């Protein structure tokens, strides 16, 4: 029998019995991030050394664009979970905590979408 008072049970306190999916997602994104980061560093160096038109062509080329999109997805998922853990560890006041958690998702979504938009624009558009 669980050692919980009725109030604790109603408020949902105690073990969450979940978190494995976050643990796994962090491990998955970490492992994926290592080779992707190495490749992206190479791409950035190549683009930095090229002129404007060549850099745009490089980032917009199919393989590079796909790898970059993958990297953005991996980074955004990873950073979202990471920041969520930081918030949960340090922010306890209910209003601040909820606001921070929502802002975390908003920031991750906006930054991710901005990167995806830019890459797709370079790949498909002018």
């Amino acid at each position: 029998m669980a050692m919980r008072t009725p109030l604790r049970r109603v408020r949902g306190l105690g073990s969450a019995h979940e978190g494995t999916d976050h643990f796994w997602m962090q491990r998955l994104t970490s492992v994926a991030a290592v080779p992707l980061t190495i490749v992206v560093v190479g791409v950035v160096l190549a683009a930095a050394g090229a002129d404007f038109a060549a850099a745009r062509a490089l980032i917009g080329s199919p393989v590079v664009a796909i790898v970059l999109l993958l990297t953005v997805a991996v980074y955004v998922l990873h950073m979202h979970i990471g920041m969520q853990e930081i918030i949960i560890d340090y922010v306890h006041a209910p209003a601040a905590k909820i606001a921070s958690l929502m802002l975390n998702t908003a920031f991750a979504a906006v930054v991710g979408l901005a990167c995806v938009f830019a890459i797709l624009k370079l790949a498909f558009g002018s």
Partner: protein
Amino acid sequence: MSMSIVHRITGAALYFGMLIPALWLLALAVGPAWFQPVQELFGSWLGRLILIGYTWALMHHMLGGIRHLIWDMGYGLTLEAADALAWATLIGSIVLTAALWLGAYALGVL
């Protein structure tokens, strides 16, 4: 011990620093109107400093992450091994950052 909090701090720095590649990609995509000022920003001494810091944070967080993955697999959990891994993370991150930036200058990229 401090390596763990540094891992968290570099993670948080990279989180906000994600704005840097986002800005650069957007500038590339939108065109010279955005790219000119962004290039100047990144080319300024402050911009360069921030980019070098971002590079170091990325390298340190990556190596620290590998360290955690090694631990996840059950290896390197003795005090001596953990110590060695911590030093490898710190020294490796500095070496990689220096190699990347010096290499970029040497190759004429920057």
